[in-house]
């Protein structure tokens, strides 16, 4: 697989000429003579798919992230009062980071309107600005610059320092409280009205729930998983190999030991999301997912065979991530070539999901990639 994928990295533009694009175009043309408003010949039950995503994955995911944010905030408050340990705060931060990977893919609707994703996890964080914020003391919510807020800023404060003065503790509480407010707002929005709207929009047109979900899925995978978690640390930005690693670009840089766990958890999150799987009492339950949607298109190259390719490539990628050794910031420097070969497996999923799957399902990619690939 890897030779083919290297070619794709060198020449990303070429992949759009893969024949899959003919399929949805033909489908649209022929369907124009039919009756339904759907632009895909499949009779797949998108309504049930959306309900499964909303009720079993997205809302419980935000509920968990909200709860983890509260626990993180409370641990920081107790630590400030001297009734809990720094170690406890660090553990809560780790849990918050893990929980975030489960809702990160849903960067549309309430998350979009509240700028949740950039507020929670913009990194590398600006340590000197955080120090300035501590001196200022007052709380100003983020406007344009998000790189001194959210989990990365908390990572800096909790993991870079072993002791904290009162000003630092004030800032920590401001930052964790901000996370609680944000996660509560987005969770409530989904619960109050947005979830119902999401489930009722069953088409595949621009602005439909499927279009928003899949565009967000792909954009977040491409930019926040593939590129941010591994691409930039190994020194690959889009199609460009800059020739050396950038170790300070890893996620949770100050904790130093989380980066690979977070990458692995993110891919598990995308695997479950793709499969529509969720957890009840820590039991994994198989729900209706994108895999079923593809399989419903039939036993053909862009139906169940594409699902097979995706399932296989996810497993290959998870196995590849397991070959990385922690801390990632050191590994990308000492074993750059090996790290790049893991990146190539992650890149192969972009092709399968963004190009082939979107083409098969007849959903347009509407987000523009700002790094030219």
């Amino acid at each position, binding site marked *: 697989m890897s030779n083919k994928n290297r070619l794709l990295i060198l020449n990303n533009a070429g992949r759009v000429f893969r024949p899959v694009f003919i399929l949805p175009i033909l489908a649209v043309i022929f369907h*124009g*003579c039919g009756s339904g408003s759907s632009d895909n010949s499949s009779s797949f039950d998108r309504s049930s798919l959306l309900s499964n995503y909303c009720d079993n994955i997205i809302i419980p995911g935000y509920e968990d992230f909200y709860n983890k944010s509260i626990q993180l905030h409370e641990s920081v408050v107790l630590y400030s009062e001297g009734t809990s340990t720094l170690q406890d705060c660090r553990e809560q931060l780790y849990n918050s980071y893990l929980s975030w990977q489960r809702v990160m893919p849903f*960067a549309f609707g309430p998350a*979009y*309107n*509240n*700028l949740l*994703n*950039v507020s929670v996890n*913009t990194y590398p964080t600006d340590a000197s600005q955080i120090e300035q914020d501590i001196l200022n003391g007052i709380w100003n*919510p*983020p*406007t*344009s*610059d*998000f790189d001194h807020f959210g989990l990365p800023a908390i990572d800096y404060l909790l993991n870079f320092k072993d002791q904290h003065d009162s000003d630092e503790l004030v800032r920590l509480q401001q930052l964790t409280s901000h996370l609680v407010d944000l996660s509560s707002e987005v969770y409530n929005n989904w619960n109050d009205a947005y979830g119902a709207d999401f489930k009722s929009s069953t088409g595949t047109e*621009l*602005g439909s729930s499927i279009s928003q979900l899949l565009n967000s899925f792909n954009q977040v995978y491409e*930019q926040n998983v593939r590129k941010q978690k591994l691409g930039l640390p190994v020194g690959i930005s889009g199609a460009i190999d800059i020739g050396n690693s950038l170790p300070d670009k890893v996620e949770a840089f100050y904790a130093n030991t989380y980066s690979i766990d977070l990458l692995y958890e993110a891919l598990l999150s995308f695997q479950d999301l793709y499969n529509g799987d969720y957890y009840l009492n820590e039991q994994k339950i198989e729900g209706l997912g994108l895999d079923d949607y593809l399989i419903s298109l039939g036993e053909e190259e862009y139906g169940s065979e594409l699902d097979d390719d995706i399932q296989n490539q996810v497993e290959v990628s998870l196995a590849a991530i397991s070959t990385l050794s922690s801390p990632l910031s050191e590994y990308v420097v000492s074993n750059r070539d090996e790290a790049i070969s893991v990146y190539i497996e992650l890149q192969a999923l972009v092709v399968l999901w963004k190009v082939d799957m979107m083409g098969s399902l007849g959903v347009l990619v509407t987000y523009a990639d*700002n790094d030219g690939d």
Partner: protein
Amino acid sequence: MIIKSNLLSMIAISAVISFASCTNNDDDVSYTIPDTYEFSDSDGNSTVSFSGQTQRKDMLGEITTYMKTGNSGMTVDAQQLQNMYANSGYTWLQNGSDPADLGGDLNASTKQLQNKTGNGRPDEADIQNYFLSLMDGLSAASNGTDGEILSGYLQSASTGKEWVQLIEKGLMGACFYHNISTYYLGDSKMNVDNTTPVDPEAGKYYTEMEHHWDEAYGYFTDQIDYDPNASTKRFWGKYAGGSREELLGTATALSEAFRTGRAAISADDMDTRDQQISIVREQMELAVGGTAIYYLNKAFNDLSSGAEAGTKNHHLAEAEAFIYGLMFGGEASFSKAEVEEMMSDMSDYNSLTGADIHAIRDQIATGLNISDSHRDNL
């Protein structure tokens, strides 16, 4: 199926129509609305002319090209810019040698942008001074005063504002839109002679009223065969397209209204003309406000995707320029004070939050009766 129904509607538009509403008129009103903006007198002489508008658009094009040299670190001279604006003491690069330049040799033109900026408004001088001061600001920034080049755009180091956008797209509002919606489609230019050709000896086969309508059209587009979906258009012909055309149908509606109104004038059907004036005003305002919303959405998207501040501020400057334009409508939904308040709400781009951007956007959408779903997707 889409292709067929478009064809049908085109046939319908070009069909001979009779207006039952014209009962006040003794004549039996029956005339053809052409598919393109082509009109001629009974001898077959074309009565359409808007060369002055084409020249002004060419001038704004050359001004913009000059202003953008500041983006690559070159000095922009305020005096030259103001000379270009007033078409006085400046030698245009567009000298007629390139047949692709529709306006021909600009050095032979007596037209200018400045005296057509907010012309006829009581605050005309203030409006023109606003642009002159923006030109001074751009020049100073290009000389290092309060200027920095971010994401390839020369912007204010203190507020993030981008003069090039405020000037170019601001003039689309204060000059082009104002002249379409308020000046030429206003009473003083519409309640004029519509029986006598102005000067057939000089090739002016049109009546005064026909010519005024053409001048409004010329500020919208210089294309006789206007295609709402083609990407080759400029200024309003372009910005009435895109997502505004896709969701609000502005470009198609404007093209139809301009052709229908012009045909009505030639047939002396004033009721239909007046209906079309209202449609042009309404649809132009949707194009102005819809484009402002489009750029505010882009700026919000920049925040959400962590784009560079320079890119976001570029989109905010474009948005502000179109918001500014909202005060120039013939039947404006926003007062000047309301427009100025929105602009003052975005006086410092760098401190604008996502919620601030959405608040301004929603105010425009509400004022123009744009649905939430269209607002979100413009």
